[in-house]
């Protein structure tokens, strides 16, 4: 009876209704295909190996080695002081799918250990990212460290870190060691792409070598010329390009200079004809401007990290921006 009724209904159903149903089925099929495609796409995205770095400089160098098979993200935004960074809840989320982390080391990003420990407590498989784990890269390994003070000697002058000056990425030659450290761990985690990573690194180092010669040539006119910096961030840059930072405005971080020190600094700057006072965008403007006004020097804004100045978009352009800024300062 029911079949008859249904049959009647089927027979009596207008032709347009069939067409509508067929279209609906086609739409459903298209939607299902789109859904499957959408599901497939994130799978393709997660195939890229996720690497979390603390700073923008390490992100840029990781991308140089990893190419398009690595998705690198940095935790500390550009132009923030990475030493004083406070980790946020979203940083733990960023670490969730990471297979490798890269840090500056030398006591520069100590907060990172705590973040990794907390993340590993929530998700035990992330324990591999902790210090000593197979996915943890301390980029400072094998770096020739400057301003070593050692434990117990204390920050009598220069940088506050007992482990040495941590701004080693500002020597472009150190990129060879940093990318070597990154390559070692990438190749261990993802052996199938090891040769790809190695080729990327060699190509990057070749580009860097060409640019380094160019930078050295351009900065030759500044070699040995006395300069003053706000904070001791430029030891590695000075060593590579033979720049002569004769003194610092704030030798002990966080402690403003005393009048006696400022007076002696002004005297020295006048005696030695210092024409350049270097500061980073996040360092106080007033003190550098005061010294410049008293001595007739120019304040030059240099980028200590990728992203600190708009022109410093990656590791190579960081040095381009700094070389341009130094050369743009008035000579006399």
């Amino acid at each position, binding site marked *: 009876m029911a079949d008859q009724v249904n049959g009647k209904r089927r027979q009596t159903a207008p032709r347009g209704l069939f067409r509508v149903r067929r279209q609906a089925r086609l739409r459903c099929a298209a939607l299902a295909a789109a859904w499957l495609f959408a599901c497939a796409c994130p799978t393709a995205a997660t195939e890229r190996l996720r690497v979390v770095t603390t700073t923008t400089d390490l992100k840029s160098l990781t991308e140089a080695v990893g190419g398009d098979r690595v998705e690198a993200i940095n935790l500390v935004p550009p132009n923030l002081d990475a030493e004083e960074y406070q980790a946020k809840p979203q940083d733990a989320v960023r670490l969730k799918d990471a297979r490798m982390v890269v840090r500056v080391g030398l006591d520069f990003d100590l907060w990172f250990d705590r973040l990794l420990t907390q993340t590993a407590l929530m998700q035990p498989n992330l324990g591999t990212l902790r210090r000593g784990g197979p996915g943890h890269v301390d980029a400072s390994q094998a770096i*020739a460290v400057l301003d070593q003070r050692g434990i117990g000697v204390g920050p009598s002058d220069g940088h506050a870190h007992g482990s040495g000056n941590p701004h080693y990425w500002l020597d472009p030659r150190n990129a060879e060691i940093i990318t070597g450290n990154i390559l070692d761990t990438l190749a261990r985690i993802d052996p199938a792409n090891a040769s790809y990573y190695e080729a990327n690194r060699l190509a990057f180092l070749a580009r860097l070598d060409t640019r380094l010669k160019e930078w050295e040539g351009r900065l030759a006119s500044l070699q040995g010329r006395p300069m003053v910096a706000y904070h001791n961030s430029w030891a590695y840059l000075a060593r590579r390009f033979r720049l002569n930072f004769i003194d610092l405005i704030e030798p002990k971080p966080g402690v403003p200079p*005393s009048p006696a020190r400022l007076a002696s600094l002004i005297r020295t700057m006048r005696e030695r004809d210092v024409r350049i006072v270097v500061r980073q965008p996040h360092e106080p403007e007033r003190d550098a401007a005061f010294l410049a006004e008293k001595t007739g020097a120019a304040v030059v804004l240099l980028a200590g990290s990728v992203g600190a100045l708009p022109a410093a978009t990656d590791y190579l352009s960081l040095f381009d921006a700094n070389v341009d800024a130094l050369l743009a300062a008035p000579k006399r």
Partner: protein
Amino acid sequence: MSDALTLLWPPFLVALCLVGIHTYFGIQVLARKVIFVDLALAQIAALGATAAFMLGHPVQGPAAYLYSLGFTLLAAFLLAFTRSWSTRIPQEALIGVIYVVAAAAAILLIDRAPQGAEHLKQILTGNILTSGTSDLSAIVPLYAAIGLVHWLAWSRLAPAPAGHASWLWEFVFYATFGVVVTSSVALAGVLLVFSFLIMPAAVGVLLADGFVRPLGIGWLVGTLASAAGLAASYAFDLPTGATMVCGFGAMLALAGVAHPFRHGDAGSMARGAVRAARWALVAVLVLSAVLLMVAPRADHPVLDAVEHAVPSVRQLYFTAGETETYVEADAYAERYRRQADELNERETRSRAEGQPLDDMVVRRISSFIKSYSEMRRGEEFVKREVRGRARERIRWVLGGIMLLAALAVAPRVLGKLVPFRRSRVGGNP
């Protein structure tokens, strides 16, 4: 000396301006019992500058100043409005709320603006040492105008009991105060501006009644403390702001000591002060003695200070062998420190002078410095161990002597413990 004068006279003139306006506001603030209002207003001004920055204006441009001013006026409105509540809730609580919410909101805004966000810290961390005549030309007319407004409208702006103040004039008070604080904090920093505001005014109020005399005393004290702080920071090579704050604190402490002498019998006050000092010395001696007897190897501030001032004191309780070991370890520690410094100096010089050092040499230098540091730590350990053992040996004797000294110093205690002496002197049988 000429260097010092050249460097210090502009900040001294700036300090005079700050003392002038802030002592007046300080007396008002003390009368209204809103001690921390300057911190809240400074933080609100920083929030305004942060908002301007987020909207794309330069941090130190006129737009940022206008935003700061706008936010400060909003806070002034809130403070004037909530003054009538202070019969139920202390206004300090509301000031605290404004401060923490403004600080937290600024952090949340800064978090969204990574580029140049650190600039914003500068709004709250001025340095009076680097202030100059250009700053004076900005603040002198501003502060003079505000001073004139307050002088002309004194009868309206004088502090009134909570609930009786006119809402409009309260707003004028907080708005002008906010403008002053915003300008001063950018010049001298939060700590120093708070000191300029409260300490000279507190000294004035402590030593005199009314309004004019405390203001005069406050100006005098503020000027003296500023000059002394600036001179001390030059002479002793210390950060200026922190030294000036301590100078203000010392002035207030002196006034606190002097205050009882003005209102009572000077002789009995002097005797009371000597008695208090003796009891303080007794407390220090007893605590040091007990600490020495219980934990001879712990830090002993009194003994350490004495040994630091007169190193030969150690020979009184060290054996000959201990003295020799201590002196030798001290000499080695100094030698290792010097050698590490020389290596560092050599590496630093090589960056720009002479032949550059290659990475291998730099690594060797770094390794040597680490070794010297470790060896120096070893020598420091030897010194501590020798001293610890010597103190362990004499703890009962020296502790006992210190306790006896405490008994001798304590007023009237010795007399009570040895009554027969007094009876003999008094001639009783």
